[in-house]
């Protein structure tokens, strides 16, 4: 339990460094507000604040992004409950029971249930992250290039097949990310590839312009399709009964089993690369409903339903960081952005980070716990006020400001206007991909992993002399078989779905 000592040191460090503490507070508040605003997700907030994090210490910058990830995941539940509009894809399941409660005038109860379940799920997931990750890292430490090739191959396959509705489109998105990452210097011989004589393209494309373009500029383009005017959203009034706006001890006890089951679902799904918070709530909701004593109440305003969706949704946050820290494989889009921040600060992810950057890693863990406390208190006491405030947000003014922040954000890391052009280009690419229902997350994750993947592949070939090397190492072979299994499972699932459509 030496982790407790490291965690205590991390808390002392955070409370003695004003920039870290401010970063966590700012991240928690910004994440909550963006998560709670339909059309603006925590991902947008994280990408927009990455350039700011570049000018902060690694701990302050990465902690701020981690805080946005956590509070943004919770924040999505506020409009889902109050306005029947999820603030994030992960909160879509929360509205099934959250909004019926609002219609009954019990939005206070629903919001308190949501924030309590979110915080509990998040907390449990963080404890596994803090106390368990180092053991995973010890296993991964023994991995050589061949094993890493297997792990990365499986991760990329999983991300491609499970994200989005079409496996082929997911695989295309991944291949596109791998291809884009080949622009620049070759990782082993440092010969230029696809530079077309442009000096800026002789080094690899920078992470920030790609992230800002794909996630934020493309989102702005999607939003501009709709003519924006003053928002028409409104929040139903509360009943006069004070019992309707609080969570009683009995109700709290009643949601604990649902929270526990959902936490397990969120933890397992969060560890798998690519799945993220959008899938976990639906699986958890189904599981909790099947175990519930009152399944008939689901969909009509069940507190268990709200707790199930929210606990699993936030349990994903800590779990997402496990593969990222140990293997350098992000568990979700949010984790990919955090990984981008690590890269910007010149920090290499993998098992060595636990020995080389111990203070940083435990500092991030501690800041995650602080973020949970912040969003819990804000959510518990102010969620309804935030919901009412969100209805007054002039989104047609926010998007242009976001866009000009994107320009300076893409320019900031290298003081390069070329990067601003890259951002606009990737904004267009992201927009076109969305129009063709091609998921963008696999492309970004593949872009981030490509360097490591290509290096591992080619180093393996040098070690083994031929391609059979991948089948001679049992760990690599296991991951290849898992990848084949994932593809087969997805093909069978898609075939069944197509038959149902027919």
């Amino acid at each position, binding site marked *: 339990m030496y982790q407790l000592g490291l965690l205590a040191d991390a808390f002392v460090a955070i409370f003695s460094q004003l920039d870290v503490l401010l970063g966590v507070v700012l991240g928690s508040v910004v994440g909550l507000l963006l998560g709670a605003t339909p059309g603006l997700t925590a991902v947008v907030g994280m990408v927009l604040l990455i*350039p*700011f994090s570049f*000018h902060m210490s690694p701990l302050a910058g990465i902690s701020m992004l981690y805080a946005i990830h956590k509070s943004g995941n919770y924040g999505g539940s506020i409009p889902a409950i109050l306005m029947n509009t999820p603030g994030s894809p992960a909160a879509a399941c929360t509205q099934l029971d959250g909004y019926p409660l609002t219609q009954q005038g019990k939005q206070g109860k629903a919001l308190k249930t949501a924030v309590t379940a979110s915080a509990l799920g998040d907390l449990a997931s963080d404890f596994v992250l803090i106390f368990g990750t180092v053991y995973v890292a010890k296993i991964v430490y023994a991995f050589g290039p061949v094993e890493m090739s297997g792990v990365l191959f499986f991760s990329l396959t999983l991300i491609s097949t499970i994200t989005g509705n079409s496996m*082929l*489109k997911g*695989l*295309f998105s991944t*291949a*596109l990310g*791998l*291809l884009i990452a*080949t622009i620049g210097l*070759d990782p*082993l*011989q440092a*010969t*230029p*590839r*696809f*530079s*077309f004589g442009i000096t800026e393209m002789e080094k690899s494309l920078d992470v920030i312009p790609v992230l800002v373009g794909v996630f934020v500029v493309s989102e*702005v*383009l999607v939003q*501009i*399709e*709709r*003519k*924006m005017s003053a928002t028409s959203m409104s929040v139903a009034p509360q009943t006069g009964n004070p019992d309707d706006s609080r969570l009683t001890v009995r109700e709290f006890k009643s949601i604990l089993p649902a929270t526990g089951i959902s936490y397990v679902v969120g933890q397992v799904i969060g560890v798998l690369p690519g799945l993220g918070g959008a899938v976990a709530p639906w699986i958890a909701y189904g599981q909790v409903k099947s175990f519930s004593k009152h399944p008939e109440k689901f969909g009509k305003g069940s507190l268990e339903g709200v707790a199930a969706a929210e606990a699993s949704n936030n349990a994903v946050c800590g779990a997402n960081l496990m593969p990222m820290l140990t293997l350098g494989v992000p568990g979700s889009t949010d984790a990919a952005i955090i990984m981008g921040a690590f890269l910007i600060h010149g920090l290499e992810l993998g098992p060595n980070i636990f020995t080389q950057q111990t203070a940083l890693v435990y500092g991030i863990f501690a800041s995650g716990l602080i973020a949970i406390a912040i969003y819990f208190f804000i959510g518990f006491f102010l969620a309804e006020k935030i919901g009412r405030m969100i209805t007054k947000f002039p989104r*047609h*003014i926010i*998007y*242009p*400001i976001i*866009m*000009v*922040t994107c*320009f*300076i954000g893409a*320019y*900031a890391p290298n*003081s390069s*206007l070329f990067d*601003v*052009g890259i951002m*606009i280009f990737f*904004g*267009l690419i992201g*927009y076109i991909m969305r129009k*063709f229902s*091609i998921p963008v997350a696999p492309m970004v994750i593949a872009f981030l992993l490509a360097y490591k993947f*290509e290096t591992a*592949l*080619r180093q393996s*070939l*040098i070690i083994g002399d*031929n*391609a059979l090397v991948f089948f001679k190492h049992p760990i690599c072979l296991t991951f290849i078989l898992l990848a084949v299994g994932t593809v087969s499972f997805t093909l069978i699932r898609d075939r069944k779905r*197509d038959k149902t*459509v*027919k």
Partner: protein
Amino acid sequence: MKPVMHGREARLGLFMVLISLLLILWLIPGYVELYTLGMYAEPLLNPRSFPYLVSGFIGLLGIAMLFFSYWKPASEKTVSELPRDAKLRVLGVLAISTLYLWLITLFGYLLPTFLGTLLLLRIFGEQRWWLMILISAGSAGSLYFVFGRIFHMMMPRGSIDFFYGF
């Protein structure tokens, strides 16, 4: 059910095949140096191997996409077309972004950011001129202050920059 060619997916499949051919036949041989010394000259280890692998994979995916698009159920065929004014707004944002990028090289950061924000606000539907001017000036100024003054970043400088050193 009679098989129907699923137009949008077929176009995507065709695009993937074409991209793959373009890469394999022209871009990789033309723009990726071939290493000819020692073990890195071997086909699987040279700098072209990974791009070839990925490009070939994209081609195979394209063929698969074309094949499956033929067998897709007809119910998935309908795709909602974007209204003309929405298309114009999207193109407007892209045009403003490109114009902004060009103006920065001439006038530096402040003036193009002010103008860019103003035009974006208009395209997003804001009608009140006084508010547009206030927000544009406020956002350009505050971003300049945060990045240029607090973070000490070198802000873009234009060839006819009225505000340089401000």
